[in-house]
């Protein structure tokens, strides 16, 4: 039945979006995770990518997490000569996490999650209506 498939597809969407939320919260939590010594790399921002996958059992286009990669952009720098991880010029290398970008990403994940939930709700109501046809007949 297509409505069951529809719910399975939406569930895969929910799973993918919650994985995305996990990665975003990792990034935000580690926004200040600097290296312990000079020359070492601090935390590198992670990026999640989704892929469209055909579920062979149901024949539906579900979504899966393709990969969680590292953001290759340059690290930020902060002047803090007293820090144990400061280099000879007095700069500490900070993670390349921009909290504004993470916030925006989080909002988008939240919106997509809600959209998937709504689709499940709608499919459920359609199903309930079909079942109710059997009642009082």
């Amino acid at each position, binding site marked *: 039945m*297509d409505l069951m498939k*529809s719910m399975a597809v*939406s569930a895969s969407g929910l799973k*993918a979006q919650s994985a*995305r939320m996990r990665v975003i919260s990792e990034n935000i939590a580690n926004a200040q995770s600097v290296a312990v010594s000079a020359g070492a790399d601090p935390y590198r921002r992670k990026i999640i990518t989704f892929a469209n996958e055909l579920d062979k059992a149901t024949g539906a286009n579900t979504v899966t997490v393709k990969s969680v990669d590292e953001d290759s952009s340059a690290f930020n720098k902060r002047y803090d000569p007293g820090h144990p991880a400061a280099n000879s010029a007095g700069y500490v290398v900070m993670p390349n996490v921009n909290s504004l970008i993470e916030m925006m990403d989080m909002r988008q994940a939240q919106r997509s999650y809600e*959209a998937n939930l709504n689709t499940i709700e709608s499919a459920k109501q359609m199903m309930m*209506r*079909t079942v109710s046809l059997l009642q009082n*007949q």
Partner: protein
Amino acid sequence: MDPSGLPLMQMITHRMEWLNQRQKVLAENIANANTPGYQAIDLEEPDFAAVLGRSRLKAVTLAVTNSGHIDFNTGGANAAVAKERDVEATPTGNTVVLEEQMIKVAETQMDYQLTANLYAKHISMLKKALGR
């Protein structure tokens, strides 16, 4: 009498199947709203004139003279999946617009309710005629 043989019942079944499948396609679009390169899809609207032509007026159709020929005359319940036109794409090449999809989901749900109500109404009319 078999009520499923009535033209109205057949039409209702056909419509419900179409709405069922559309719901699945829309769920696919929404689930893939953040997948790079994903193209939003939708079902083709059933063509009223074509349905009418199939039942009343005999339109010119392809003849099937060999079992190897593909029969285009049988109008299957499943409408072809068509790519959506005139849509905006994100920088990643994704063409799903969540708002549009949500409207379509609501539309599908409402149409489904309507069709189900029609079905129930029709059955109750038949029952009235039977005196039950």
